[in-house]
Structure formats: C-alpha cells, structure tokens
C-alpha cells in the first residue's frame, strides 16, 4: 500500500479543510441579489378533497410577492417517475399523476397546497397562516393489505385500485418453487416487517431558482445527488425547458443517502417561480418539513419461506412482499422492491429455486423511494433472518448452515437473473470469525451473565449489487434512463488536470479518491488533479451518485478518459523524442524511450500540446482533453460477513451493542480510510434501523415521528467502535479498476446481525423467541421476553 498517494493510499481528504473551517458552499449558503423566499403551505390531513384555497387575506400580508396554488400548474407536467414496472400479468404499473402543488385532492400530510413567495422567509411563513384551505377529509388509506382489499378507499380516484403493480420474479419459476416447498424435508416460514425509515441527511433540502431575462436561461441550485438527472426530469417532463436553457448546480451537499436522488416539487416550483416573478426564489426546508416531504425508505411487509432438504441444503426460497409506495410514485420508487430487491434474493447461497412476489401499494403517506441500500437491505434482512430461524428449528449452528450453502464457484448464475462475477464467501466468513473472536464469546457471555445481563451473538452474510447496468438491460427492465457515467479529463498546458465527472460527491470524498486514481495512472502528484462535479454547465451528462456506483461506473469513465489522454500524450512524446510510439513508456510522470536514456517530462508533453510548435499537427490535433462515457457490462457484487454482539437488560429490554465486526469484499480499494468511513456510517444507519429508527403513522395518517424528538436517530452513545476489514478482495472482472462499491454495505449487512444477536440473547436467557420486529426498542424486547 503506497504511503505517498495514488491507488491504495489513505490520502487525507482535501475537501475536509473547507468543511472544517466553515468555508463549505452548501445550497443554503447561496444567496442571490434580490431573492425572494418561498414557504410551502402543506396539508395537515392525510387524505381529502381540496375544495378551495383562499389566498386573498394572505396576499395582503406584509412582504408577500405572490402566492402559487395548484391552479397555476395545470399547464405544466407533473413530477415524473423514472421507472415503469411490468407486472406478472404483463401489464404496466398504475402510474398516478403527481402535481407540483395539490390539485383536487391532498394525499398525505405534507402534500404541498400553496407556495407563498415573500420578501423574507418569516413573512412567507406568516402569510401561510392567513390562507384558508377548505378540505373535506376522507378516510386515510394506511394499512397496505387493507388498501388492496376490495372496497378500500382509493388514494387516486382515476386508478382502478391502490395496487400499483403485482410483480412476480421469476414468474416462470413459480410452479417449480411451490412444488419444491411442498415437497421439502423442512420449511421455515417467517413473517416480518422492514420498518419504514426517514433518511434524514443532516442538511435539509434547499432550492434556489434563478432566471436570466437577458439570456432566457434558468438556473436551479439544489441539494441533489444527480444534477443532470434533475435537469432532464424537471426540464423535459415538468417545466418544458430544454437542457441548453437550464443549468442545475448541486454544490456542497450535506449527505443524501438516496433522499436527494429524486426530483421534488419544490425544485420545480422555485425554478418556475423565478421566471414567473423575474427574481431569484429560495426555499430552505425546515427539519419538520423534511420529515413530511423527503421520500422515506424501506416499509416492506414480507412473508418468506425457506425450504431445505434432509441434509439442510437450501432448495427453494419464496417470498411475498407488500411494498409501500406512499401517495405518489417518487422518481425510482417502483424499481426498489423489484429489480433492486428480487434480484438479490439468492443471497450468498446456491439455492436453486427462488420466487419473489411484490405487491406495491399506494397509501396516504409520504412517497417511499430508495434509501441507502434500496431493496438490498430488505432482501438481505429476510434471507438472513429466515436462515437463523431455520437454524433454530433444525438445531444446527447458523454459521455452519450458511457455510454449507455458500456459492463457491464463480461466475455464478443465480435463479434470479443475475450473474455474480466474483466473490469468496468462505474467505470473508473466515476473516469475520477471526475479527469477531468468536472463540472468546463464551467467556464474554459469562461476564455478561455475572452482571445480570443477557448476551447474544448474531452473524450474517450479505450480497449486494452495485453500479446497476448495463443501460440496454435496465431499459428492458423499465428504467426510463441510461445508467452509464461520464468524465472529461482536461489537461492544462503546465501539466495540471481538471477532471469533470458526472458523479456527485456529498460526503464520499470523490475529490480525493478520484484524484488518486488519475494521478496514479500518470504517475504525478495527486495535488495536480482537481475534481469538478455538481454543475451541469461544466460537467458531461452523467447519472450521478447512488447505488454505490461512483467509483465502479464514474471511476471507470474517468479511467477510460485518462487512457485516451495518455494515448495521445504518448504520440506527442514520441514526436518530441523522435522515437516510435510503441517504444514510449510512461512511469512516474516521465515518458521515456524503452532501452534508452531519452525522456521527456509530463509537463513538457502537455506544454507541447498547447504550444504546438514542435508537434505532429498533420497527425493529431493540438490540445489535451478527452471525454469518456462508460456503460458497465454487469452489476458489481460486493459481499461480506458481519457479526454483532449485544447485551440485553432483562429488566428493561434495553439492547446495547457490545461488539460489531464487518468483513467486506469490495474488490480493489482506492482509499482504505474512506472505505472504512463509508462502512462505519452504513453500520450506524443499519444499527439505527435495527434498534432505534421507526417511522410511525397513526390510523389517520398523522406522522407520529415528525422531529428528532420523536424519531430516534443514532447518537454517539448508541454505537460502539466498529471493527471493519476489507482485506478479502476478489476484484470485479469487468471494470478497469476491479472495484465493487462500498457505500451501502454497512446499512445492508447490519440489521440482520443485530436482530439475530438479540434473538440469540433472549433464547440464551430462556425465552422461546424466534423473531422480534425492528426497531428493537426496549418495550418490544421486554414484551418479547414476557411471551
């Protein structure tokens, strides 16, 4: 591992200095001359007919510039959905209209009804109080199974029911799966809830719309993970602005975790209003507003059957899941319970038959979409929980049961349509057993017991699919987008480089790790490479950052563009040294002629490209700038094994995480420090889901967890120091860096290990418990102990 930079070095992050000194440039730090402020009046009921919105009194309030309502948006498109699922009958999903501002009905608490633009943010808020809204309240559709029963109130009157789609995968396998389960030596069945979560990136969403009358150009500054996607969705589908007249800028963004992938109504409103009012318009979301307007995550109710033969080999998996879509289809919502979930249901195991059924349901709740892991945590949780339950029922060791069923030969084609290129699940489990000191568990158990505490150990594996691709495949699966990534590498005359990437960094450290890759390829100092991202005006069209795709897809595009740069630079070097191009070698930033002492420096070649006096102008153009678009041949498949040890207070049911170990295989690693940090953060979110976080609604659709006082975010004292390792490396075979992606692993792999550990603790304490639904709050755990 190099200590001085390049691939494999834990280079310190260059972006840290501005963040540590208060010099970050987040969207809320942007203020335009003459800007007005917008405040959204939102529905305080979950479902109702919107009879009227009387803005007359509010319009006369101090500072009010204009008030928009749904009637102002009848001429523009609605918020689009980016993925169309075809159901098990071959029918396309039901896709409701999603107006920018509520039109006719309100469908969830938080649905925006009016947008008040005023001279100050306080004046806009004050005026909202004076708007009179007349709503005839309707019954709230909350329970997913009831929502799809005959006679249910409909969230969308123009749809046939609340069922968005009924998806079967692989439908042709269903008969064989049913038969295998009917004839199995043992079947373990588990019903569970994957609890609804609220992403809560620490930076609330912000949008600033600006319109330039002299050019007719619109600009949107927004807290986005993918500014090009927002430009396309908002420009083409909502406002009818062509891309060349619309610029979207996502500057420093304070975390995303999926919730900032999606195109939101507030972005369209600010862009629209800036043009309509001819002045910049800014919206800053409050945290309370974020709880009822940011897309939520997870919210699956699942029944899973695992069939085993007499030798405990897995023979079939069958699942039935109800997936909550909320009131409208958020940008990628339909893909999460289907292609990002069903394709992972083989897990790390050679189960020959798998069938996944997903019923996606509309309810009067905030839309649900991708949240860190997106479908893969749901798949992992079901599978790794049912395996532990099977081990209990069969009286076998859960680790041995997993090892017995591991896929051990690669490439491996699963029965759910994907092919794992590489992996070594035995190696990660071996590493985990060493890291977690499993042999010392009994001693630690005795210590806990001596303190009057229960102690448990939970182990599980995970597989994930990152860098979803290739584009032609995802198009067949219903994506209304490509999933390539782009990079432009611009070499300056004096040798420094600017890399413009379509990826977006909002905590991942791309400015550091991407620079390491390019610098390593050329053999120059990292500080000669600058990474530019987040502005559609100066980056090539790219799909942004989510699904742990940035290095595997965006990094690959950068490698391809840099390869083009090096190829051209070699020609220039060959000319300068009057040598054959084939004899030119590049090492440590020096071009040399093989077998001679002739060499020219990187900077000599770049200068020649821009001052082409001694230059093969008849063969190549001056300048040194190249672009590449990279469309992967396959997903990447990171995997790992996790272990959690908990103590449970038998008097209160309170769970504490005593140890957490994670052995991951991410393929090759560019910056180990950053990779560890990504895993740490994912683990905290997974532990949060398992122990603390649960979005609650009452039967009327009122959000019960609408602030940090009610929604339990993990605090520093809720988590331990983690033990993480990524020394098991089976490089990806189909991207040039051999990398797999690490951003979501922690959140995918950790919830089942926590729950497995708590169930283990309760059983060791003499309680006949096989499952407790997340979050494992003290009251739930205590109740489980009472039987």
């Amino acid at each position, binding site marked *: 591992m190099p200590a001085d930079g390049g691939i494999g070095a834990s280079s310190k992050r260059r972006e*840290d200095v501005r963040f540590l000194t208060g*010099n*970050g440039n987040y969207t809320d730090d942007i203020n335009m001359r003459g800007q007005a402020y917008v405040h959204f009046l939102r529905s305080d009921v979950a479902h109702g007919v919107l009879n009227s919105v009387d803005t007359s009194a509010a319009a006369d309030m101090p500072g009010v510039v204009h008030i928009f309502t749904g009637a102002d948006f009848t001429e523009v498109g609605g918020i689009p959905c980016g993925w169309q699922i075809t159901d098990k009958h071959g029918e396309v999903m039901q896709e409701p209209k999603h107006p920018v501002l509520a039109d006719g009905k309100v469908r969830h608490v938080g649905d925006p009804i009016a947008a008040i633009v005023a001279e100050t943010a306080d004046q806009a808020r004050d005026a909202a109080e004076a708007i009179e809204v007349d709503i005839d309240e309707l019954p709230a559709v909350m329970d997913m199974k009831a929502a799809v029963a005959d006679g249910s109130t409909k969230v969308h009157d123009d749809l046939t029911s609340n069922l968005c789609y009924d998806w079967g995968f692989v439908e042709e396998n269903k008969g064989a799966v049913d038969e295998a389960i009917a004839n199995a030596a043992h079947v373990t069945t588990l019903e569970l809830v994957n609890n609804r979560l609220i992403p809560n990136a*620490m930076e609330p969403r912000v949008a600033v719309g600006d319109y330039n009358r002299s050019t007719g150009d619109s600009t949107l500054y927004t807290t986005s993970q993918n500014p090009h996607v927002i430009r396309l969705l908002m420009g083409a589908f909502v406002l009818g602005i062509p891309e060349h007249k619309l610029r979207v800028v996502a500057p420093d963004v*304070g975390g995303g975790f999926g919730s900032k992938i999606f195109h939101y109504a507030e972005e369209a409103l600010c862009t629209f209003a800036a043009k309509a009012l001819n002045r910049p318009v800014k919206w*800053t979301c409050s945290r309370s507003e974020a709880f009822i307007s940011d897309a939520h995550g997870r919210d699956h109710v699942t029944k899973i059957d695992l069939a085993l033969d007499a030798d405990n080999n897995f023979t079939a998996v069958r699942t039935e899941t109800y997936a909550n879509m909320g009131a409208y289809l958020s940008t990628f919502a339909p893909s999460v319970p289907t292609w990002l979930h069903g394709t992972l249901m083989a897990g790390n195991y050679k189960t020959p038959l798998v069938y996944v059924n997903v019923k996606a349901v509309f309810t009067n709740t905030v839309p649900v979409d991708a949240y860190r892991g997106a479908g893969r945590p749901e798949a992992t949780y079901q599978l790794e929980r049912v395996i532990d339950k099977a081990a209990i029922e069969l009286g076998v060791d859960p680790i041995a049961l997993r090892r017995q069923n591991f896929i051990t030969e690669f490439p491996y084609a699963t029965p759910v349509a994907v092919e794992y290129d590489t992996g070594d699940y035995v190696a990660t489990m071996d590493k985990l057993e060493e890291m977690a000191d499993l042999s010392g568990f009994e001693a630690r158990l005795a210590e806990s017991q001596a303190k009057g505490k229960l102690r448990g150990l939970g182990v599980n594996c995970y597989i994930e699919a990152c860098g979803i691709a290739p584009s032609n495949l995802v198009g067949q699966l219903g994506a209304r987008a490509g999933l390539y990534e782009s990079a432009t590498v611009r070499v300056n005359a004096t040798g420094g480089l600017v890399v413009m990437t379509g990826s977006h960094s909002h905590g991942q450290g791309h400015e550091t790790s991407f620079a390491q890759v390019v610098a390593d390829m050329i053999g120059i100092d990292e500080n000669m490479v600058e990474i530019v991202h987040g502005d559609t005006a100066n980056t090539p069209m790219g799909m942004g950052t989510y699904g742990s795709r940035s290095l595997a897809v965006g990094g690959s595009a950068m490698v391809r563009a840099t390869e083009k740069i090096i190829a051209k630079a070699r020609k220039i070097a060959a000319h300068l040294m009057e040598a054959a191009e084939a004899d030119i070698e590049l090492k440590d930033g020096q071009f040399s002629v093989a077998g001679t002492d002739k060499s020219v420096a990187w900077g000599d070649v770049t200068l020649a490209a821009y001052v082409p006096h001694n230059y093969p102008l008849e063969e190549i153009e001056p300048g040194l700038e190249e672009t590449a678009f990279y469309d992967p041949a396959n997903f990447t498949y990171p995997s790992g094994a996790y272990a959690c040890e908990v103590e449970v207070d038998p008097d209160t049911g309170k769970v504490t995480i005593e140890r957490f170990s994670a052995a991951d295989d991410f393929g090759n690693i560019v910056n180990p420090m950053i990779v560890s940090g990504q895993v740490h*953060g994912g683990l905290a*979110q997974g532990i949060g889901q398992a122990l603390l976080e649960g979005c609650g609604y009452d039967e009327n659709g009122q959000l019960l967890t609408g602030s940090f006082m009610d929604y339990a975010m993990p605090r*520093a004292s809720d988590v331990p120091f983690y033990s993480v390792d990524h020394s098991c490396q089976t490089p990806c075979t189909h991207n040039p860096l051999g990398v797999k992606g690490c951003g979501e692993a922690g959140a995918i792999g950790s919830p089942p290990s926590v729950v497995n550990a708590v169930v283990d603790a309760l059983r060791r304490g003499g309680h006949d418990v096989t499952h407790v639904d997340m979050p494992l709050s003290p009251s739930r755990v205590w109740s489980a102990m009472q039987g």
Partner: protein
Amino acid sequence: MPQVNMTVNGKAATGTVEGRTLLVDFLRETLGMTGTHVGCDTSQCGACVVHVNGKAVKSCTMFAAEAEGAEVATVEGMAAADGTLSTIQQAFQDHHGLQCGFCTPGMVMSAAALLRDNPKPSEAEVRDYLEGNICRCTGYHNIVKAIMAASGQDVSSIAAE
C-alpha cells in the same frame, strides 16, 4: 427593529434584527457567516453549536438580542489567521472525522468545549458529551477517535481507520 452588538471571533459585529431573530440566523443571514449550520428546528442536531461567552450553545436556541454584548466564537474563528487548522480541526482531518461536512462545525465547536472542560475524556465521556450532536455519515467512530486524539491520547489501538 432593535440593533444588537456583539463580538464574533474577536471582531465587533452589529446588525438590526427582529425580536424573533435567532442567533444562528443573525450569524448566517445578517453577518453572512455561513459556517454555522441549521440541521433541525427542535434543537436536537447540534449543527449550529457556537460558543457564547465561552460556553457551547446551540445558536438556534438563543435570540440574537440575547447575545447583546456577548463574545461569540464560531467555526470560522477556529483556525489560525494563516489558515493553520486548530488541533481539533487537524485531528478531524487526520482521522477522517467528517464526510459530508454538514454537522462538522457543530462537532468541532462541541469538541472544543468538551476538551476545555475535560482535557482527557474517556471514550464514554466523549460519546456522552456528543448527545446533542447528530452525524448521519460517520457512524461516530472517527469523530470519537479524532476528539480523543486531539486530547493527546493514543488512539492507535482503536480499530480501523
């Protein structure tokens, strides 16, 4: 509207505010010092922590007018005039104690207050002290490690990077 006068990072600062103007809004909107962040509206997240007369305060819980005459310190004043990071700031970079950077100003200011009161905190003391600072990115591992390192303690035995 009343005028308020205070000292921010050693310099006199003056502005007119409404009675309801929060200290954090005075800093961000009136003075244009956007290093202090707003991550919630219930005083839970701690992204807005500053020091007022030497004490760590969530600047969203205090009216600007209440800071009349006060000495206020923000993250913008933590590094030396030549840009050299403070011990705490440097430890956060060295130990990867930040990712998206949004909670970071509050973390740095809370850490500074902690180490002033408790120069060698234990792991449990650090975690307990950060009860009012939420981070969604780091899982806290490297924040706790950075603060312990900034206090001069050997953190080399703490797992991972």
